[in-house]
């Protein structure tokens, strides 16, 4: 079969994508029991281009990638690599054929060292023995390329998710691949890290590598991508050159309608910020934990959104975990609504009206083998105790309400959460806590990996909840998001609180603060 560009909406053009595609997928369909994840999708990838695969959560992006790399066997359709028909039986074969992939969830071995995770399966050897010194040097070199200076001998699990993500990327770019696939590699990265990654991607592209890139950050896509393919509900919507498609067009292609919510969020946030202040829902004095975060004071009023900003490893998550009793504080006092509480366990925090969405969705959030319904009611059920099951009627109503409110797909409460797309898992997690009607909601990276429509939805929800009087702690690596939503921003640096800014603070202010305290540190 020959390529038939006449049916395409966008012709290959410009400096990139001359010649034949490296990857050409035709008529790909993929069915899971009860879900048609992909229906007759065509996709092609040219050498020397960065190609963004766009679509909402659950659109089928990751599935298409997994079909390409042989993780799944498509129900129908064909894949060609360099013009030759391929059907990989698994990632190992795909890798051997020059397709290097970073999958969406960090897929590394937490028990092994960073160096091993990068080089596993291709360690330098001498006389049949792995050459440890060479492995280490090689790993250091690859990490250096990513701008990372961590110890290659350290165990992967000791590092935060963002570092793990970078390690996964380092592994993928360590080989001379002709195709590099990056499924949401930037979801937990800082600006600087993203910049570093893009530098590498551009470099590889210029060397002729074909790069497939998935991200929900439109700015990133417009910055790096030459071309994009848009999926919606498992169907192909179109293929376009980036320069031919405005953001608005892209968004409406992705969600199939105009996006009105975004502007609404801006307005709501502005409204809500006027109501800031009031009785403190939570007041922490001198709260801290050795080796985790230095003692800090924090006051959160009803209806207030407090943002936590800081670089990776600055202690954002650690602070949140103390407030939730997930880790036990070894100093300080917490008062909820004026009364002192002892947050020994999450359970005690929950009964004090605190809720916490962990950033580690897979490890600390969802229960993959349970249905959406069970996941949704779990926290509420746990709080009621086992002997008082939630009546079926109430349960159905709650599930129905929140599944609709957050637009969780597939719209089937019996679907197993482990099989949902990443974004939808996040929504289920959020809904689990909203069901309990907490007084204080702690959200750690709630919009990571979430598509822009849903992101806007969640941001809107946060402002609405705040307007109704809920106190919210909002953690995000995206400073814009924090600056936009928060009435107050707490800046963290090196595991201690360094400043508190009011709602008028801009991204630049926060950045400046992080930077200056940095230089202070260096100076001292």
């Amino acid at each position, binding site marked *: 079969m020959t390529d038939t560009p006449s049916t395409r909406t966008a012709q290959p053009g410009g400096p990139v994508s001359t010649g034949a595609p490296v990857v050409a997928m035709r008529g790909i369909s993929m069915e899971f029991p009860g879900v048609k994840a992909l229906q007759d999708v065509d996709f092609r990838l040219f050498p020397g281009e960065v190609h963004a695969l766009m679509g909402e959560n659950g659109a089928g992006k990751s599935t298409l990638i997994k079909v390409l790399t042989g*993780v799944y066997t498509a129900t129908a359709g064909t894949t060609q690599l360099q013009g030759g028909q391929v059907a990989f039986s*698994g*990632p*190992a074969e*795909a*890798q*051997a054929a020059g397709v290097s*992939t970073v*999958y969406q969830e960090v*897929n*590394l*071995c*937490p*028990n*092994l060292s960073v160096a*091993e995770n990068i080089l*596993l*399966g291709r*360690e330098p*050897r001498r006389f*049949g*023995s*792995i050459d*440890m010194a060479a492995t280490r040097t090689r790993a250091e070199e690859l990490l250096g390329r990513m701008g990372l200076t961590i110890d290659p001998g350290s*165990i992967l*699990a000791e590092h935060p998710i963002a570092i793990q993500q970078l390690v996964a990327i380092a*592994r993928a770019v360590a080989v001379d691949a002709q195709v590099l696939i990056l499924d949401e590699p930037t979801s937990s990265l800082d600006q600087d890290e993203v910049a570093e990654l893009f530098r590498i991607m551009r470099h590889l592209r210029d060397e002729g590598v074909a790069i497939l890139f998935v991200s929900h950050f439109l700015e990133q896509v417009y910055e790096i991508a030459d071309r994009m393919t848009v999926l919606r509900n498992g169907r192909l919507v179109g293929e376009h050159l980036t320069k031919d498609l405005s953001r608005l067009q892209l968004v409406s292609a992705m969600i199939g309608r105009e996006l009105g919510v975004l502007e609404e969020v801006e307005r709501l946030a502005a409204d809500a910020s006027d109501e800031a202040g009031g009785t403190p829902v939570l007041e922490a004095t001198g709260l801290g934990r050795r*080796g985790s975060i230095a003692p800090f004071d924090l006051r959160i009023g009803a209806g207030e959104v407090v943002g936590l900003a800081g670089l990776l490893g600055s202690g954002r998550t650690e602070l949140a975990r103390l407030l939730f009793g997930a880790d036990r504080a070894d100093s300080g006092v917490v008062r909820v609504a004026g009364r002192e509480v002892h947050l020994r366990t999450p359970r005690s925090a929950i009964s004090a009206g605190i809720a916490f969405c962990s950033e*580690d969705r*897979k*490890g*600390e959030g969802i229960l*993959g*083998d349970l249905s959406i319904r069970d996941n949704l009611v779990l926290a509420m059920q746990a709080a009621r105790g086992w002997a008082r099951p939630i009546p079926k009627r109430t349960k159905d109503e709650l599930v129905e309400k929140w599944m609709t409110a957050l637009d969780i797909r597939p719209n089937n409460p019996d679907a197993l959460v*482990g*099989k949902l797309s990443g974004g939808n898992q996040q929504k289920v997690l959020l809904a689990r806590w909203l069901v309990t009607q907490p007084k204080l909601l702690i959200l750690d990276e709630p919009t990571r990996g979430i598509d822009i429509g849903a992101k806007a939805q969640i941001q809107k929800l946060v402002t609405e909840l705040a307007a109704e009087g809920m106190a919210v702690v909002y953690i995000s690596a995206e400073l814009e998001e924090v600056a936009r939503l928060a009435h107050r921003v707490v800046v963290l640096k090196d595991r201690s609180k360094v400043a508190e800014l009011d709602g008028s603070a801009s991204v630049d202010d926060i950045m400046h603060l992080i930077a200056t305290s940095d230089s202070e540190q260096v100076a001292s």
Partner: protein
Amino acid sequence: MTTTTPTKRTVPALSRLPGIPGRVLPVIATFVLFVLLFGAGSVRYEGFTSGQVFANLFIDNAFLIVLAVGMTFVILTGGIDLSVGAVVALSTMVAAAALRAGLPAPVVILLVLAIGTGLGVLMGLVIHHFELQPFIVTLAGMFMARGLCFVIGVESISIKDPFFRALATGTIELPGGVVITWSVVIALAIVAAAVWVLHRTRFGRTIYAIGGSESSATLMGLPVGRVKVAAYAISGLCAAVAGLLFSVYMLSGYGLHAVGMELDAIASVVIGGTLLSGGVGYVLGSLLGVLVLGVIQTLISFQGTLSSWWTKIAIGTLLLLFIVMQRLFMRRTP
């Protein structure tokens, strides 16, 4: 059911002592406690502190050491092998029967090794390709191996082969008058080989990777299937070797040999600090684990006059003491 939702491994959050990586702590704990246990024996009983008592730990447990090495491979992948005790029995039975039938010793040895490895491969293939749970498949393997013993014969068969007899009686004298057997040499050689394989080959690192996260290992493009099957093959091979050592030790083949020995092997591995969930542990830890069990046995034999039930209770109590102390030791280190 379990394969599609990899949950995050809870690698014990051990911080480090200066210079010691957190994950060797359990091995060190085992070592320290082993020394304490041995010391306690020395204080309590006369003649406990001789080099020969120590050497006897190896002599009497050579087969268990080999078994524990094989088990370590399997447990590191996150699996388990319950068949090993039965494979030991089968090996003794096959060896005894074949020798009685007049086959030359080298052929018998090869035959036994082939049977053990073959069973391991078979179980590994079933586990990997049909995604059945290792516990069940190897439990069935255990029934199968024991059953085959009885198919060969229900009586104990003694071994008269000169080579086996020579191995059984042959000793090596170490400086200091301490005597060990060839079994000990074989067992320690296997330990050394296993350490090398696990730490210095891609195959070995893949074993760890699979234990860390099988789905990740697959997505990383590692040959998960082959390595997993190989782990069970190694366990089968080790069980066969252990069976040969055991036939040398007992100079007989019997279907009721080594009943429950799989649990001893698993206990040794776990005592040595290996996590049953896979991905974390060391062969040397397993060796220490065997020695701990050995010391417990030795303590009891030195005590002498225990009835069989007090022996059981004592073993249980010492085991308990040990794991609780190990646990507390690891908790306290900040």
